[in-house]
């Protein structure tokens, strides 16, 4: 497996389109999230020229995972859409804090790919570590995520120092929460 990362302009040709289609398959088709989608691609207002994408590609050239990194000094998902997940804390606006969102590692080539199997294969760990490293390279000391609650276990199993920002909330039938991840403590700073 290999990691590909960068802003849209720095990605290999065609990879941005591939990641938006992968996101559609995961979040819209498999997880049933009500997200903006067009022609089998999932994008939103936070997919901008400065947005950083992290992808894992398997040996067969298939996207096996993706994540999105946003600076908190510009509009980001948690600050704009889900500030209530911060338990009363004002959304951070800090060059050393980046947001990790749209994190998914689902192997559609596995014999029985299901949404619940997304944390089970090796691409997940690789993607999480690559996302943390990619953020660290850009000056992040902490990440804040908006994710399904299950990701907290994954983060901690990987040995990353993390804690939730507050209680999970049921939003459109899905339990999501915000979680802090220490980048410095993971050895990338």
């Amino acid at each position: 497996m290999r990691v590909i990362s960068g802003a849209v302009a720095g990605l290999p040709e065609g990879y941005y389109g591939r990641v938006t289609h992968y996101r559609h398959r995961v979040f819209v088709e498999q997880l049933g999230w009500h997200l903006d989608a067009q022609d089998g691609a999932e994008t939103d207002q936070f997919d901008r020229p400065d947005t950083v994408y992290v992808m894992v590609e398997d040996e067969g050239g298939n996207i096996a995972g993706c994540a999105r990194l946003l600076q908190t000094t510009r509009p980001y998902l948690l600050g704009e859409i889900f500030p209530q997940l911060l338990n009363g804390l004002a959304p951070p606006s800090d060059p050393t804090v980046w947001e990790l969102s749209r994190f998914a590692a689902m192997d559609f080539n596995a014999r029985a790919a299901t949404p619940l199997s997304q944390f089970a294969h090796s691409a997940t760990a690789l993607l999480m570590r690559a996302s943390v490293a990619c953020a660290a390279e850009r000056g992040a000391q902490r990440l804040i995520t908006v994710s399904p609650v299950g990701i907290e276990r994954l983060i901690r199993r990987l040995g990353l120092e993390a804690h939730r920002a507050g209680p999970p909330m049921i939003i459109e039938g899905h339990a999501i929460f915000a979680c802090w991840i220490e980048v410095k403590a993971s050895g990338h700073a």
Partner: protein
Amino acid sequence: MKSYDPRGAAGDQLPLTVSADGYVRLTLPAFRAIPLSHLLSELDLDADLPPSTASGACLASIVGYTEWASQTIPALSVGWDWRLATTAGRVRYEREGEVRSNVMLLDARRRDLGGVATGMLLCAAVDVLDWERAVDNYINNRYACHLSNLTVTESRSNL
């Protein structure tokens, strides 16, 4: 439900606040004085299940996680994994692994105890809560059909 007065909680003189790092800081006595309410529980269908411990049979292993929170502002949030354990024919819920939270416990001088010590103390605090019944009711209501299927599977495999 018992109301919470931070001034009355032993060892704690300050109202609850969220720190910039996202933690809610308080002492263990203060934490214990705050009631926690059940938010949600889910089956973990993605868990790595251990091999069966039953000889010649295949026990259905049921695991999941549960989330609890206080009614305070800011809220305390704690969650942990559980497993339905069978001992001497009796089925009961057991906490499994660490407690995840937004809590940082403080010592009497209001210094952070750190993540490891906080985690251990929260585990001990959770273990004296009567959480099993709430989880059982929630899971049974939410997954009645699914659990019924698991029961059938277990029965058949024990034939």
